[in-house]
Each structure stands twice: as structure tokens, then as C-alpha cells.
């Protein structure tokens, strides 16, 4: 494995490997994927650390995200501006958190952020409403949706403020058997 690539400097690659769960090869591959989303926008040479952001509409066309009902929220959560325009750092960060090696605590933190639509650090009834509608593609009737949201708050809310704080969410997720295997994207 020589130093034949010119996309990143060695220090940059080291930094990426330190901050994410990816190896050197994977980071270069990710850069290839990032570039093919917007080839005219993303330069081949990242050694100067250019400030390029790929818009949300392009990122959600990736086959890994295309079928996911929460794709918009995922991309928004991992973008610096909150609108879904991701720099390469955000891009790598997103896939690193969702990869298999990422630990449960990290995934829990980001899952909370993803499901928190209005970004007030609480998952309130409105957030649950939107999550459920996305998840069932509108197949449930309004009263069924309302019943489910009430039940979720009843089950998971420990401090009694009718919304889920991070600790409520974490307490509930920590016992879930499928969370780690389902909250996982392979890139």
C-alpha cells in the first residue's frame, strides 16, 4: 500500500482514521462515493480541505439511503448547517456512526437526534406522530396513530413531562434487542 493517492495528505487520512471507525481504504472509497454524487462540485484533490457541500437532494439518492423513510432526517442530523448540505467530513461522520463497529451509546445519541424532528432535545408527541406516519406510509388511521403515540409516551416517559428526554430514550433503547442490528448501514 504505497502513498500513490493524491486525494488526501497523510495527516488528513490519519485524522480521519482517528475520528471515525473506517480504515484508510474505506475513507478513500467513501470519497469516491461522495464525489460520484456531484462530480462537477467535488474536486478530486482534497489536500487543501476545500469547503464544498453536497445538497440534501443528491445525498438521498444514494442506494443505501434511498429506501429509508428517515433519510431526510438522517442527512439533516449529520450536516453542520442543519439543512442537509453535507461536507465530506459530515458525510464520513454519518456513515461512521451508522457502521457496524460503532458502539451502542454513540448510535443512541444520534438516533435520538434523528427522531427529534423539531430539534428541541425532546421527542414530543409531534415528533412521534411524524415518525409513525413515515414508518407506516400513512396506512394507519388517525386514532390508531394517536393511540400508538400515547402508548409510547406512557411506556418510555419516566419523568412525566409527556415527552421523551434523552435519558428516557436511552433507557428504553438500551433494552431493545434489535436496535444495534437494525440501526446499521453498510457502505
Amino acid at each position, binding site marked *: *500500500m504505497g502513498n500513490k493517492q493524491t486525494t488526501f495528505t497523510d495527516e488528513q487520512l490519519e485524522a480521519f*482514521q*482517528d*475520528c*471515525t*471507525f473506517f*480504515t484508510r*481504504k474505506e475513507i478513500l472509497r467513501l470519497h469516491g462515493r461522495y464525489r460520484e454524487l456531484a462530480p462537477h462540485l467535488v474536486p478530486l484533490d482534497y489536500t487543501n480541505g476545500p469547503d464544498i457541500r453536497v445538497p440534501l437532494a443528491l445525498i438521498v439518492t444514494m*442506494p*443505501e439511503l*434511498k*429506501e*429509508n*423513510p*428517515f433519510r431526510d432526517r438522517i442527512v439533516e442530523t449529520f450536516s453542520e448547517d442543519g439543512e442537509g448540505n453535507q461536507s465530506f467530513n459530515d458525510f464520513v*461522520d454519518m456513515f*461512521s*456512526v*451508522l457502521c*457496524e*463497529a460503532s*458502539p*451502542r*451509546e*454513540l448510535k443512541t*445519541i*444520534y*438516533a435520538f437526534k434523528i*427522531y427529534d424532528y423539531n430539534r428541541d432535545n425532546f421527542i414530543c408527541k409531534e415528533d*412521534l406522530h411524524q*415518525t*409513525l406516519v413515515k*414508518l*407506516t*406510509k400513512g*396506512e*394507519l388511521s388517525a386514532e*390508531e396513530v394517536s*393511540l*400508538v403515540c400515547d*402508548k*409510547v409516551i406512557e*411506556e*418510555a416517559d*419516566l*419523568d412525566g413531562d409527556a415527552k421523551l428526554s434523552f435519558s428516557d430514550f436511552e*433507557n*428504553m*433503547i438500551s*433494552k*431493545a434487542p*434489535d*436496535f*444495534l*442490528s*437494525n*440501526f*446499521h*448501514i*453498510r457502505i
Partner: protein
Amino acid sequence: KPQRKAKKTSDDEEDEDEDESPRKRGRKKKKRDSDEDEDDEDRSTKKGSKASRKKKAKDESEEESEEDNKKKKNGRNGGGKGASKKTKEEQNKDKKGKGNGKDKGKDKGKDKGGDKKKKGREAQEFVERFEGALGKGKGRKWYAYKVMMTKKLIKFKRDFENFKTACIPWERKIKEVESHFGSSVASYFIFLRWMYGLNLVLFGFMFGLVMLPEILMGLPYGSIARKTVPRAEQDTAMDFSVLFDFNGYCKYSFIFYGYYNNDRMVGVLKFRLPLSYLLVGVGIFGYSLMVVVRTMARNSNEGGEGAEEGEFTFSWKMFTSWDYLIGNPETADNKYASITTSFKESIVDEQENQKDENIHLRRFLRVLANFMILCSLGGSGFLIYYVVKRSQDFAEMDNKELSWLEKNEVEFVMSLLGLVCPPLFETIAELEDYHPRIALKWQLGRIFALFLGNLYTFLFALFDEVNAKLEKEKVIKNETIWALNEYYANYSSFHNTTDIPPPNVHPADVVRGPCWETGVGIEFVKLIVSDMQVTYLTILIGDFARAVIVRFLNYCWCWDLEAGFPSYGEFDISGNVLGLVFNQGMIWMGAFYAPGLVGLNVLRLLTSMYYQCWAVMSCNVPHERVFKASRSNNFYMGLLLLVLFLSLLPVVYTIMTLPPSFDCGPFSGQEKMYDVVMETIENDLPAFIGNIFTYATNPGLIMPAVLLMILALYYLNTTSKGYQQANLDLKRKMQMVSFIILYSCFLLYVKVELI
């Protein structure tokens, strides 16, 4: 910095790629292993170590996630490639290895504050163990070899697992059914698949150990009397109607008991066919029992502990049900459908819990319903008894005078009852207004009683027939002995010798006994075939024709056929499950008398699977109230176990008490069927084993053994109850602890606020 150095060496090595992927694989395997074994200890230590590292990260003021990533990466790199390789190696040997690897990681972290001497010693041990990994020192070649073998082993294990999973048939079909119809309908198909596997194994035993030796090494067709069609029947033996009734060539083939010869040993390998026949016949029950009990145990483990039925059902469904790995639009559609169905199931469960009831009216209605059902059960029992009595009279009459209906009256009536009564029970059960899952159980119980009554009445009828045949046989046996003596007397008086050759009679002309075992085998095969025909016809008419009519007649009909009567059919879970269970019961009963029956059943299950899957997807609609199947399938398994015992009884009874026919089957000529076992013990096995058996069958030994088993059962039961209680106590303690922590945090917060 040590981590930099470790990385430099890793960069230098040529096979960097290969080594990095095993590290990942090691990590993945660690994760998979820790997810697979429900070993709470391991999981908690893993979480503990991660949590401690995370706490260190929280102390700093930088952004959380980046800090986490960095610290975690550091922690892992600090161990160096060797440590991760070590963890991967050790976990292949033993679970303890996992603990060791983690401890090593933790130790590496704690080293920074440790004793200098201790550090030096540990470093020396570490270098000695892993200098092979660095490509230097004496351990190099052996280490490289070990690494290569471990990699190969991991790859082989993973391929084997993939192969095993790929071998499971019909997985996608069942998933499709599940996503459209819910878990209860799918549970029927899963049960059907399990049955298919069981029958395949039973068929393997029967075929390999009984049928194949007889076919390959035994005498061919036509050589001896029992294997030939008698002269009187020969001109009709090939007719389709005769074959359809399993007479003619069918009756004298390896499918039935009568074909097998009673030679003690067959062929070059000296295969003891009669012994094998008896052992396989009994072994089928033993194997089935073992498999059923094992599946029940496994189901109860999965269903019971871990996931609490009610704790976070909706929350988990909402936040953890979507599989982020899905990238295929069709899979995504299926997943949406299954998630929606799953939510609907839980909503129904919830609504049932919230209903309030008028107790007295409900109780009265339930008593009334049960009374009506008892009446219909009694009625059906009486009807079968009447038909059976009639069939005994018919048996006296000449076969040719009876119409098809009269010949097959018993099977016809039984199938009809099996068709008519379950919907009747269901309509009556509407009075009771139970939760759908409980109503299903009641329905199953009632149909079970119905089928049981039918089956045992059928058996009693059969038993009468067998007794009649035994009487006939005695007569024929006396006749043949008398004829043989006559022949010898004539021959010796004619030729004046004592060395008389056996009478030269063509096998087709020999006088035959009625061979009651083959008769019983034929009855069972006819029953199974008629059962199968009725099931398939019902699906064709009841579901398919109905769906076609509703769909196409709807254009020109006054009311909406699809919404009102008759609309599309729903899949009848209880009827089908019980049909399957009783079918299996009949197989178990009949396999001893008709070895070919198991093969027939395998074919039947195979076609059933495809046919019913197609029928369900194209003609049925999901139940109006979709409910979750009970988490453990143990109810079906329990039914199966009961049926297994009930079908064991007749077979064991006949083996023990009835004498085998004198001229057909592998036990002909003996007093009792199990005599062959005694004979083998006396002749073939060394003397002391015979002694052991004599001692073992001594009642003085058996009684204490039975007592001991009862005591062991009682002890195990008590310990298991104790564990359950301990489990509950621990759960309660954990809840209390979490509550206390929450409360103290709250107090602290209040204090801080006040200050």
C-alpha cells in the same frame, strides 16, 4: 508515542489489508458472539468498559461525538494489532478468551498509572507472546501458521453457517405471507415446514433401514407366496380402481407390512431385517418425541425471558423496527407492510385490554356455548359409531354388491364431520366474545376433541376388524397345517422315503391367511389419501372458486359481494393446524404397518406447502382483526406431543399383545412381535448382555428406577421454580435501583437550584 509505533509497524507489513480485515472480522465476530449468546455478563462488562472510557471523554469540554470516536480509537490502537489478533484467536478457543482480551485492553489503559516494575514485567510477557506477530523472533513461523489456520477456520465456519441458512427452504415465501397476513398465519406455514423436516428424517430412517435392504437384498417379487398377487386376484390386479383402493399390485409391494420376509438375516451384509423393522418402528416414536420436546424447550427459552411481553412494545416497534440495511424497493414495501401489520396487531391487543365487560351476561353466554358444543360433539361421536357398526355389517356382505359410497362410508363421514363441525364451532363461539388469541385456543381445543373422538372410534372399528381377521387366520392356519401333513403323508406312502421335498406349489396358488397388519396399513393409507383429497378440494372450492365467483359475479350482482356475503375467505388457522397435527398422528400410527406411508406423507406435505401458499396469497384476505401469534409456538407443539402419545398407545398395544400373522411380514412364525428382540439378545449378543437384560427387566429394579425418576422430576421442577422467582426478584431490585438513582438525581438538582 506507543500507538504511533504500533501503527508504523502495521503500515510496513505487506499484508496490511489481510490483517486489517481479520481485525474487523474479529470485532464483528465479537459483536456477533456477544449478541448471540444471551450472556448478560459479557454484555454488561463490554458496556462497562465502553462506558468507563466514555466517562473519561465526557470530562473534556470538546464536542462529544468526536471525542468519543477519538478516545475509542485510541483505546483500541493502544492495544496494538497484537491484542486484537489475540482476542480473535482466543475467542475461537474459548469464551474466556473474550474476557481476557477485554481485560488486556482494560489493563493497557490502566497501565499508565501502574507500577513501573509491573509494567516492565507485563511488557516483557507481552513481547514474548507476540514477537511472532511482529515478524521477528522464534515464534514467527508457528505464529503465522496459527494465524492462517484461524483465518481459514473462521471463513469455513461462516461459509457453513451461510450454507445452513441457505438450506432452509421457503424462507422468502413465508416472509411474504407474513408481511401480508400477519404472524399467526405465517406461524402455520412455519409449523408445516418444521413437520416437513421431521417427516423427511423419519422417511430417511424407514427407507434406509427397512425398505432399501428388503428391496435390494431381499427376495424379489413373485418368488415367495407373500410377495405375489394370489391367483384369484391376478386378472384385476392392474386395474386403476383396484390400485386406487390399494389392492392388487399395491398390496403386495414394499409399501405394506405383508411384503417383508421373515428371514433372520438378509444378503451379504447379514442385515437383520426383522430386528431393524421393529427397532425402526419404535425408534420413529422415540425420535419424534425427542425432537418435539427439544423444540418445545427451545421455544420456551426464547419466548420466556429477555424481551418482556409488555414493557416497551410500542416504543421498540416505532424506533427499532425499520431495518436500515434495506435498499431494495420491493423489500422496503414488504417491510412497510409488515411494520403496519405489526402495529395493528399490537393495537388490537391494547384495545382488548381496555374493553370493559358485563360479567354475568358473558358467563351465561359462555356456558350456553359450551353446552351446545358438547351436544354437537356427542352427536358426531354417535354418528361415527353408527357408521362403523354399519361398515362391520357391510364387511360381511360380498364386496362387489356395495357401491363406492357404502365401501368408503367411514372415511367419507369422518371427512365430512371434519369439514362441517369446525365452522359450526366457530359460529357458536361468537357468543363467547373472547380475545382472538384465546378464542383460537378454544377453537383448537374443541376441534381437537372432535378429531380425537373420530380417530379413536375409527381405531375401535379397526380393532374389531383385526380380531375378526385373527379368527379367520386361525382357521386358515389349521387348514394349511392339515394340508401339509396330508401332503407329507401321501408323499411318504407313495415314495416310501422320509426325506420329503417341500411341496412344489406356485407362490400365487398358496392358500393365504388374511394378514391383518397389511389390512390395517391399507386402512390408514386410505384414510390419509381421502383426508388429503378432502383438504385440497375444500381449498379449491371453498377458497378459490369462492374468490373467482366473488370477483367476477360482482359486476352483475345486486349487492356488493366483496364487502358483504360471501366476500373472500379468511385463512382458517385452527382447522389447518389441527389437520396437520392429526395427519401426523395417523402417520405415526400407520407407519409400523405401512412403511411406505411416511414417503407418501413427505410428498403430501411438499405439495401442501406450495398449494396452500399459492391459495393463501391469491384467494384469501387478511383477518379483519389481525392478532399476534402467541410468542411461543408451544401450544401447537403441546398438541403434537399429546397426539404422539395417543398414537403410540395403539401401536405398542398391538406389538405387545396381538400375535403376528403366520404367513406375512417380518415377524411371521413368531408368537409375539417383540420375540425377535429376545432372539437377537440370546443368539447374537454375548452372554452377559442377556444377563443384564434379565436383571434390568426385574420388577424389583424397575420400581426404584421409576421412583428415582419421579424424584428427579420433582427436584428439577422445584429448582426451575426457584430460578423463576430469583429472576423476578432481580428484576424488581433493578427497577427499585433505577428509581432510587432517578430520585437522588432529582434531589441533587433541586439542591443545586436552591444554592
